[in-house]
């Protein structure tokens, strides 16, 4: 298939990932920033066999159907940004390799009542060198934490931004994406 280098009028689709634990508000976040209602699809992803699978003697890869919600923001005639919520179930986290392929960056949504739910996402993006920030979704009932408390609890690198947000609010959620873009630009400036 021909590649899309923009020379023939085809817009190019760009990908951001919205990650975090189950029920943290990923689809809500996508819905707040998307210009369309969040859409839903299922993709067949390849998974390297891990853990107990080895006991069966079946090595190699298997495929699993993974459900994803996504939204869209038109950037220009040349670029369309897609936001994919990663599957929330923790047992799926090792599949993100294929999901994350080609991702420009990621938002890790955190709920301070269940901070540990975002450990796998933080580990994954750090190990793959995908730029990300942590956005603490402030639910009404949530105790407020200082960003530095969250940083030390998640053992984040000093340059990984932490922001507070309301995932239901368009301005707030868009502000998170702006923060991510500024972070990605700053990372490039440091190289």
């Amino acid at each position, binding site marked *: 298939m021909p590649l899309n280098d923009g020379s023939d009028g085809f817009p190019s689709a760009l990908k951001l990932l919205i990650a975090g634990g189950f029920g943290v508000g990923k689809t809500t976040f996508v819905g707040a920033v998307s210009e369309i209602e969040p859409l839903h*699809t299922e993709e067949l992803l390849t998974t390297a066999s891990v853990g107990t699978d080895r006991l069966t003697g079946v090595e190699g890869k298997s495929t699993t159907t993974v459900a994803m919600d996504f939204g869209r923001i*038109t950037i220009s005639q040349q670029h369309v940004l897609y936001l994919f919520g990663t599957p929330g179930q923790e047992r799926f986290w090792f599949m993100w390799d294929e999901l994350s392929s080609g991702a*420009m960056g990621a938002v890790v949504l955190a709920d301070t009542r269940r901070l540990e739910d975002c450990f796998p996402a933080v580990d994954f993006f750090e190990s793959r060198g995908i730029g990300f920030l942590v956005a603490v979704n402030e639910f009404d009932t949530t105790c407020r934490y200082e960003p530095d408390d969250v940083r030390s609890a998640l053992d984040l690198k000093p340059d990984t931004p932490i922001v507070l947000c309301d995932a239901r609010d368009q301005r707030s959620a868009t502000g998170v994406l702006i923060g991510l873009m500024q972070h990605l630009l700053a990372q490039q400036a440091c190289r």
Partner: protein
Amino acid sequence: MLDTDEHWFDDAAGRLIRPYTVSNGRTEPTTRMELLSMVIATGRRPQGQLGPEHAQALGLCDSFTTVAEVAARLRLPAVVTKILLSDLVDWGVVDTRAPDPMADSTNLTVLEAILDALERRI
């Protein structure tokens, strides 16, 4: 919405026919496609009568869109949608481009374009 298709869809149960039925049991598309591959109708008329799923898929390609969006609107798994769309590519009625590998997080022009567009939305 897909009015003509509604009786084949149940909100609780999902599609009432097995997904691979619409691809004639095939599980591999003839053209490699990704979720974010762009597709658009070429404007050429199909030779012969398209099946209902192929016709629906083609109808969703009137303007630039992605495999992921077509799959979501057809309410079909992405892998089945890729097979339908690759048929349409083979028949010359849809054109496709894979995502631009240069549009990554090291591309300052792209990052700045996204930042500008987001700031305009606030």
